[in-house]
C-alpha cells in the first residue's frame, strides 16, 4: 500500500520534469500468477516502446 503511493508520487515527479509518469508502474502479482505476469510484462513493454527511449539519453 505504501509502496503503491510512493510509486504514484514518483510518477508525479516524472510528469513535472516532462518525462512520462507512465514510465513507472507497480502491480501486485503472486508467484502463482504466471499468465498475468507475462501479460503485464508484455503490456508494459509495449507501453514503453510507444513512449520511446528516455529523451534524457538523446539530449
Amino acid at each position, binding site marked *: 500500500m505504501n509502496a503503491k503511493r510512493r510509486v504514484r508520487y514518483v510518477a508525479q*515527479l516524472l510528469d*513535472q*520534469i*516532462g*518525462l512520462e509518469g507512465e514510465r513507472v508502474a507497480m502491480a501486485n502479482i503472486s508467484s502463482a500468477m504466471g499468465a498475468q505476469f507475462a501479460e503485464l510484462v508484455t503490456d508494459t513493454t509495449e507501453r514503453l516502446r510507444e513512449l520511446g527511449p528516455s*529523451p*534524457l539519453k538523446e*539530449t
Partner: protein
Amino acid sequence: MIVGEQKPLDEVMELLGDARKVLLAGCGTCVTVCFAGGEKEVGILASQLRMRSKLEGHAMEVDEVTVQRQCEWEFIDPLASRLKDYDVVLSLACGIGIQGMNERFPSTITLPGVNTTFLGIPEKQGVWEERCQACGDCILAVTAGICPIARCSKQLLNGPCGGSQNGVCEIDPDTPCAWQLIWDRARELGTVDKLLEIQKPKDWSKSRDGGPRKIVREDLVLIDEQTGD
C-alpha cells in the same frame, strides 16, 4: 514547528530563469521534519532540475547543500566562500531561512523554493495542522490548551458561533470546531467556569497588527568591548 511545502516545479523553473549554476540549499530543522526542504528533498529537487533543464535544452548545474539551520548566522556562515561560484541560491528553508541567507549574503540572490505555510504539528504521518499564529499574547490557559486564534476560523474569543454544527466548522466538514474542542476539554478538566468569563477584545498590537516584532533580552545581549555598548 514551522510547516511549509515545496513550490511547484514550474514555478521554481520560472524563478530560476536563465541561471545555469544553482546551489540548492536545504535546512535541517523544521522543513526537514515536514518533508519540504531537508536533505532528501534537496536531492530529489536537484535531480528534477537537472533533468528538466536538460530536456528544455539548457542544462543547469545544480549543487546540493543542507545546513542544520538557515535561520542562524553560525550555521550559514560556512557557505560564504562557496556562493561566488553560483548564479543563484535556491533555498528550501522556510521564509526565515531564505531571508537569513539574503541578509547575511547581500550580493548573492537567494530565491524561495518553499511556501512557508503555518506553525503547526504533525497530526499524523503525512498530515500537518496549524496550531499557533504567534499572536504574542497566549490565552491557552483560559481555553483548555486549545487555541481559538489559530484553530477557530473566526478567531473568536467567546465561541462557538452559530456555524458550529455537530462539532464541525461551517467552512469545511474536515475542520473541527475549535470551540467545541475547547468546551469538551474544559468539561473534562472541570474548568468550564473559565469559559463563562467574557473575554475582552484581544490586544492585536502584540500580534502582526503592531508591525514587525522584536524581542530584546538585555541579559543575553553581548556587550561590545570596544564601545561598552
